[in-house]
């Protein structure tokens, strides 16, 4: 199964100067675990903040998230893969680089995200289809 078949296409973007607290609010309201951070004119153009980053780098250390910009904790660059990549290949990359999600890019633009839960779902469907 290719990534394009099972990727999540609704991705939230925030600019690098966005307040971390506002970003957290978006993540809570929309029940999402990561946000793409745009760095316009500063290649690499995309970074990512995750719930894990927020807990470990900020909240766990007692830092006030309202005092930070998303750019201060964003991981850069993001891991981009092709939409035609097979799911098991993405799983191998995630294992090799110890990352929980890969971003699907087309001509340098992020068009989707595939997380561990998506890979698990895809693998279960493949089993059910007998593939």
């Amino acid at each position: 199964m290719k990534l394009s078949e099972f990727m999540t296409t609704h991705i939230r973007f925030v600019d690098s100067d966005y307040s971390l607290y506002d970003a957290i609010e978006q993540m809570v309201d929309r029940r999402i675990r990561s946000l793409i951070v745009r760095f316009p004119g500063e290649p690499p153009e995309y970074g990512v903040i995750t719930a894990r980053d927020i807990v470990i780098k900020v909240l766990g250390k007692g830092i006030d998230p309202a005092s930070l910009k998303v750019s201060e904790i964003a991981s850069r660059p993001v891991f981009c893969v092709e939409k035609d990549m097979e799911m098991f290949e993405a799983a191998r990359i995630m294992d090799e680089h110890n990352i929980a999600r890969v971003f699907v890019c087309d001509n340098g633009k992020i068009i989707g995200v595939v997380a561990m839960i998506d890979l698990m779902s895809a693998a279960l469907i493949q089993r059910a289809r007998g593939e």
Partner: protein
Amino acid sequence: MFKKFFQQGKKEQAVIDKTAAHIELLIAACKGFHEGLIQEDKSRVLQVFHLEREADTIRREIIAAIYEGAFLPYLRPNLCRFAELVDRVFDDIEGAANHYSEMEIPEVLKEDCVRVAFYNIRICEMLLICFHALIEGNELREKTLAVRIYEKKIDDIKFEMKRILWKLPVQGFWEGRILAEFVDGLTAISDIVEDASDYLHIINVSMK
């Protein structure tokens, strides 16, 4: 189990064949709908009407055969209910096709609509796999889980589409209503397929 106990009679075999044909027709309708959306070809989408009429005939034949004595009495209500649920999916596809013929999908929703239509094909294919597994006496658990995974995937897209929909400017009441009903119909198909797969599970359990 199913095969061992119930497939010997001609009436039972006829119901099984017709039910499989009913689901195959449903897959064909979903494929036609999906292709029509991609090509923005309303006449292709409207071919669903012909398939729906054909499906209606099959449903009547299935229910008539069951009432004429196919299968043990305790299985009949759930088999009838299953056929009716498949038919309800056809009604929803037909409704969505009808709405599509009266509107243009806003650019911001096109990709999501195509994606949901694609998952509708997949979830219906999985329903057919579930049905064959039931007939062959195979385990249904993994198959029904796959149906639920697709349903959840479509649900996630539906909520995002609704967020977009609520903010979308429309020219008038009917434009907004037709668009909302189109999205509702397109995203409701997976809910009914999930219910149908639950009935297969119930039939399977009731034979143990």
